[in-house]
């Protein structure tokens, strides 16, 4: 019998180097099951590199035949943007699992993204609206903590991840082997979401994002104060503030923050939220209140935090209005759409400010201005000079190094695999995890395959009688020495049962064969047999303290189930013969007794 299976993890396609939120797409093979984790796109590319290269998965043959399921951790496009391409254009008909909020919001973001790509940029060979719809038909929604049985062997379970509405970590389990994939998560609750949580599920492998691998971020409160101060100062001096956001997620958190600040300070400067997704987005938050943080859940009946008094819908004409204002506009990386339009209008005025509240992928305007570029080449060879203030505030809800360590501590994995981060920083975190938590840690490069051997115990059924008998004896005080459980494993097809040997014989209709030994031990002793027996008795009694030694009325001596009788052979009165008799089951003790008695008895103790 062989007790080793193996897990096999393929890190499929991740973005380039640098602080880069690339495409997430991981293939995990575990105990013969193949699961694809996330299906992201790269926002910085407009060509083939935008989508993962699915030919990595299988060169020939259909994806549906190879993959047992696909899991999407949350609705950000770098985790789900390639899904319609994957399922409808490459071709996959198996199940796609995601949480209810992700299922609700995902198609809207995909459609939004498609519109920008196709309608605005005129890209061809892109997925269509119908493809998004068809793709979403393959989605199976999961509840938090629900154990979803993908098939007889493969099960998955979602845990709360914070990060964005509906974000989840997933446990993938086959038999006793398991992998946890965190997706993106945050370990501290924010203004609208709670903190990620997982139980001590001891997976063989934990695949965690490591976006903020080295940062231990200052307290959220400081960052919030900083943000409010900057916004306030800018509008006080008559400037306009542009905050490029994605419609769902950070936007809601910052809206809550500004809303409460405006109310407290009694400010009148208008705040706008770029139209389209906005009201809808807030509506999702209202309907999925159980996914938000505890405070919002507790107070939503009295006051729904997502009904904003100060924040109004934005009209593109407002951008030219004189005077201060704050505008939340999509998309978040200034790569297209309304946020970019507003940015172009406001960039020339040094009174204005743009606050980037999250990452920007390489190649986007957001990334350029954050890296210090002040002269931007726009479409049509136009050069845009950026005079407005550019601020970066990390509000992205990712776990920092402390948070990642915390999660690893919670789940207690056998090993950790870091994805989604910069090599140097990941190296630092890897060392920290290996030294402080003594957990082996991997950080594969893009397209690299990591294989982890796992050692598997074999589950069998033990008869309750055997187990109870064994456990009862384990409770006895003399059970200090390791005791052996003895039984017979019956293997019939794939049904393995461990039973007592007697039961095994009985079940198979076999009779026991008793093997008995009787040894003659000659002793020099002139006394009578009875006295010899008595001497044997006291001798053994003094040596075998842990055993039950008895002197029976018929003159024989027993040690446990071993019988010793003294006899006098007629020819020699000076010799006595001890007959020591035992069964094969008492072999050790019987053999020991004969050699002990052979040495003779000690001189008479009177």
């Amino acid at each position: 019998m062989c007790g080793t299976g193996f897990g096999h993890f393929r890190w499929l396609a991740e973005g380039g180097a640098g602080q880069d939120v690339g495409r997430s797409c991981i293939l995990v093979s575990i105990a013969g099951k193949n699961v694809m984790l996330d299906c992201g796109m790269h926002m910085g590319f407009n060509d083939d590199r935008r989508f993962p290269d699915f030919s990595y998965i299988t060169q020939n043959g259909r994806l549906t035949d190879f993959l047992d399921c696909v899991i999407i951790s949350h609705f950000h496009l770098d985790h789900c943007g390639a899904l319609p391409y994957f399922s409808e254009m490459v071709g996959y008909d198996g199940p796609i699992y995601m949480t209810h909020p992700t299922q609700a919001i995902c198609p809207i973001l995909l459609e939004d993204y498609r519109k920008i790509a196709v309608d605005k940029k005129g890209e061809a060979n892109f997925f269509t609206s119908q493809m998004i719809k068809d793709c979403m038909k393959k989605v199976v929604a999961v509840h938090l903590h629900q154990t979803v049985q993908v098939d007889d062997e493969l099960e998955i379970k979602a845990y709360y991840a914070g990060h964005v509405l509906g974000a989840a970590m997933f446990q993938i389990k086959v038999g006793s082997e398991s992998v946890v994939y965190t997706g993106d998560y945050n370990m501290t609750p924010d203004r609208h979401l709670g903190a990620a949580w997982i139980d001590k599920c001891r997976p063989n492998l934990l695949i965690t994002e490591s976006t903020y691998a080295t940062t231990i971020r200052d307290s959220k409160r400081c960052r919030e104060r900083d943000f409010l101060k900057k916004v306030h100062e800018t509008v006080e001096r008559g400037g306009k503030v542009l905050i490029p956001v994605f419609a769902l997620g950070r936007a809601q958190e910052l809206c809550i923050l500004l809303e409460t600040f405006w109310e407290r300070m009694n400010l009148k400067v208008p705040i706008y939220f770029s139209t389209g997704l906005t009201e809808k987005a807030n509506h999702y938050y209202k309907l999925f209140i159980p996914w938000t943080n505890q405070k919002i859940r507790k107070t939503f009946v009295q006051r729904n935090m997502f009904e904003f008094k100060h924040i109004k819908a934005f009209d593109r004409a407002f951008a030219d209005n004189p005077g201060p204002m704050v505008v939340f506009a999509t998309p978040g990386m200034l790569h297209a759409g309304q946020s970019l339009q507003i940015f172009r209008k406001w960039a020339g005025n040094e009174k204005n400010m743009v606050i980037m509240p999250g990452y920007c992928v390489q190649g986007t305007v957001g990334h350029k201005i954050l890296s210090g570029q002040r002269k931007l080449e726009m479409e049509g060879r136009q050069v845009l000079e950026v005079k407005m203030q550019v601020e970066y505030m990390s509000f992205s809800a990712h776990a920092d190094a402390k948070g990642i360590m915390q999660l690893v501590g919670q789940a207690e994995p056998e090993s950790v695999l870091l994805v989604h981060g910069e090599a140097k920083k990941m190296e630092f975190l890897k060392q920290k995890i290996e030294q402080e938590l003594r957990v082996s840690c991997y950080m594969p490069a893009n397209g690299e395959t990591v294989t982890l051997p796992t050692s598997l115990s074999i589950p069998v059924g033990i008869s309750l009688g055997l187990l109870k008998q064994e456990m009862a004896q384990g409770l006895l005080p003399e059970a200090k020495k390791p005791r052996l459980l003895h039984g017979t494993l019956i293997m019939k097809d794939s049904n393995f049962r461990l039973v007592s040997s007697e039961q095994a014989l009985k079940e198979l209709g076999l009779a026991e064969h008793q093997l008995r030994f009787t040894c003659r031990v000659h002793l020099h002793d002139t006394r009578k047999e009875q006295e010899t027996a008595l001497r044997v008795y006291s001798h053994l009694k003094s040596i075998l303290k842990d055993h039950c030694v008895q002197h029976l009325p018929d003159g024989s001596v027993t040690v446990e189930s071993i019988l010793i009788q003294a006899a006098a052979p007629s020819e020699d009165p000076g010799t006595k013969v001890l007959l020591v008799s035992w069964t094969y089951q008492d072999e050790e003790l019987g053999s020991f007794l004969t050699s002990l008695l052979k040495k003779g008895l000690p001189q008479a103790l009177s």
Partner: protein
Amino acid sequence: MCKTELIDLSTVDVILISNYHCMMALPYITEHTGFTGTVYATEPTVQIGRLLMEELVNFIERVPKAQSASLWKNKDIQRLLPSPLKDAVEVSTWRRCYTMQEVNSALSKIQLVGYSQKIELFGAVQVTPLSSGYALGSSNWIIQSHYEKVSYVSGSSLLTTHPQPMDQASLKNSDVLVLTGLTQIPTANPDGMVGEFCSNLALTVRNGGNVLVPCYPSGVIYDLLECLYQYIDSAGLSSVPLYFISPVANSSLEFSQIFAEWLCHNKQSKVYLPEPPFPHAELIQTNKLKHYPSIHGDFSNDFRQPCVVFTGHPSLRFGDVVHFMELWGKSSLNTVIFTEPDFSYLEALAPYQPLAMKCIYCPIDTRLNFIQVSKLLKEVQPLHVVCPEQYTQPPPAQSHRMDLMIDCQPPAMSYRRAEVLALPFKRRYEKIEIMPELADSLVPMEIKPGISLATVSAVLHTKDNKHLLQPPPRPAQPTSGKKRKRVSDDVPDCKVLKPLLSGSIPVEQFVQTLEKHGFSDIKVEDTAKGHIVLLQEAETLIQIEEDSTHIICDNDEMLRVRLRDLVLKFLQKF
């Protein structure tokens, strides 16, 4: 209320809550009995359960009693009192209603769980809640070990109302299915009742009367509001105000909209649009439905007649409903419609008699009826069914209705109040893990076609009720530093048993083997039961019978061990 003196509640490890109606006594257990275990329930169960308790506490606290009579509880006095007082059972165990503080404390002890979540209890059993289709978050429970499965089915519905449909498939392969919480009114069809409700409501309002609906603040009221949403426009009643009066009316309406994941598919998909799953949001928006915490304050200003009032408590003994019974009871234009099945409407009305008001009884109970039960049992096929005694015979008032009882094979085992029942299965096996190192060392042997055996000697390691077999420890190396060994150090541990043997020894082959191994001078004698093999030179005698072998020799250990090993070659070890 629970009869707590039967069991010591401090010894209870876990409480599983099936739905929000089944948790009204929870504070009595968690706060005053020494109970320290865990309570499991789904999130909607806890949130709506909290609302029901909050309403109850609020109703009771509105009418504080300076004194409460207790002398009448003396048995000698009680039996002299008029009915129903003299028939009340176990009045000494009656308790005051709990406070909101106790409710909060009780609810804080609940662990939230989701449908199909596997919850490990002490490593020994696993419990799993399943959707029961009866109410928001209502659950059936599976309690299982690796080899046994018990299903607890309580308050389930196969009708399509607002909750997620009942999960029947997961109940399959149960050893025992405990079935309770069937419909109180097996003869009433809920759909018909809803129709009657609407037509009576319309009739009354058209004639200028008011309609009073005594109800709980959550549950069927959502379905009734949805029916009215579709019905009032077509019936020309859109101008008639609907009032929902309860201290938790607002919370109940709000909460109903955020549990999309616990709703039926239709309602769930609305959230994706995104729209609120229940149409009462629109009734509120268009001012057709108004809700108030009580009849005081805003309600008295807004109150217009004729109108429809939904309010509690359905027993008509406390809450705002009492006020409306007194206000409207004298006019035959008005109607009270009973929809909650928990209380006998005649008893509820008794103190208000004589009444001019019309009384309509439309109990809406969506829980399983007997036809649905037999359909369910056919589908799920448990080995045994266990249920309350009442379900195994027709109701006393309709003793000829043999269809109003559970009919299954083998007949259901029934239980009575305060009775302890042993479930009809015997636990035989438990799961144990064999470590890979040990598994590698096992030597399987095919005994019969398809059946292999391997003897296992291993160290049992048990932690948190999980069992693991590890390889036996290597024999310790003799310590060389020790000068003198005591004899007793060598005494073998008698608990290390050798395996059992089976098989038989063919004499001729055995003798040949002996010869091959250098024994000569072998003599074989036949006996009644077998043979005796004599090794004359060694003064050794081997008795061989069908089921036994006996080696009798001098104390020559070398010889004995050689013979032993030759004998063992012919036998199988177990």
